[in-house]
């Protein structure tokens, strides 16, 4: 049975956390982070997504099949992105479309 453990108070906290994180990533985007730029921004985005899923979408309350399902699709998403990008990243210099190297 679905026990609504998560209520209005959690929602409020989640919302505030989300806004804080958004502000943080916005601020960080102005700092000269160099190569860490993308990882940091994506990490924050992933955190926000996790917050939304856990509390707004009540994933924290679910047991069994639903968390497993979510785990699977996150995994597959990662696989698709990784192996596709890996192709472009590891092609010989010759095969890469020219243009803007870093």
């Amino acid at each position, binding site marked *: *049975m*679905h026990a*609504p453990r998560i*209520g*209005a108070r959690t*929602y*409020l906290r*989640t*919302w505030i956390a*989300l*806004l804080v994180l*958004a502000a943080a*990533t*916005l601020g960080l*985007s102005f700092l000269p982070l160099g190569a860490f*730029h*993308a990882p940091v*921004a*994506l990490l*924050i*985005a992933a955190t*926000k*997504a996790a917050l*939304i*899923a856990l*509390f*707004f*979408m009540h994933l924290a309350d*679910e047991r069994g*099949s*639903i968390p497993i*399902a*979510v785990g*699977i*699709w*996150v995994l*597959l*998403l990662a696989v*698709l*992105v990784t192996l*596709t*990008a890996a*192709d*472009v*990243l590891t092609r010989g210099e010759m095969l*890469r*479309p020219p*243009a*803007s*190297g*870093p």
Partner: protein
Amino acid sequence: MDSAATAPHLASHFEDLAKQTHAARLGMWVFIGSEALLFSALFALYAAYRAAYPAAFRAAAGHTDLTLGSLMTGVLLTSSYLVAMGLARVRASRPRGAAGFLAGAVLLGIAFLALKGMEYAEHFRAGIYPGVGYRSATLPGAGANIFFTLYYAMTGLHALHVLGGVVLLIWLAWRVRAGRLTAVYHTPLELGGLYWHFVDVIWVFLWPLFYLLR
């Protein structure tokens, strides 16, 4: 069929309402997984193209409107919160408050679409069209072109989802007001909320990819 009496919403092939709601939620989550993979193909393209054109992508990301983008982020996050609150109110048997929250979310959703439209218009003025039409003088070159093609494809697909979500929320708000969704039975609201939050999650990733990673 022990609990059949208490539940007019129970379909004959389910044992009880709890099972039926669980089935509905599971179905929704599976559907969301499907949706996530829909976007993931575009995320994969983004990653691959960014690997191919890193500099052009950075330059182009610097060209999108950060203010509008951040505003949209705030708008969507807040609307998500409002939808969650709407659900909390329904559960607490306070339909009036719930409908108010949902109406707020609808307004924010519409505001998001308006901002998106403004941004598109701004780009069009600069000659930044998707695909063949692309003719920006400030950002020439293959990489920027691809960046904006992806930008239109991903934000466009997302905006379509927002649009669908807005329609869904209007219908839900109306049903809540009409007292059709109650503390006992509010599965449609739960599912609609899940969908809206998912749309939010997608934006949470689009925002850095197209605005922040400059």
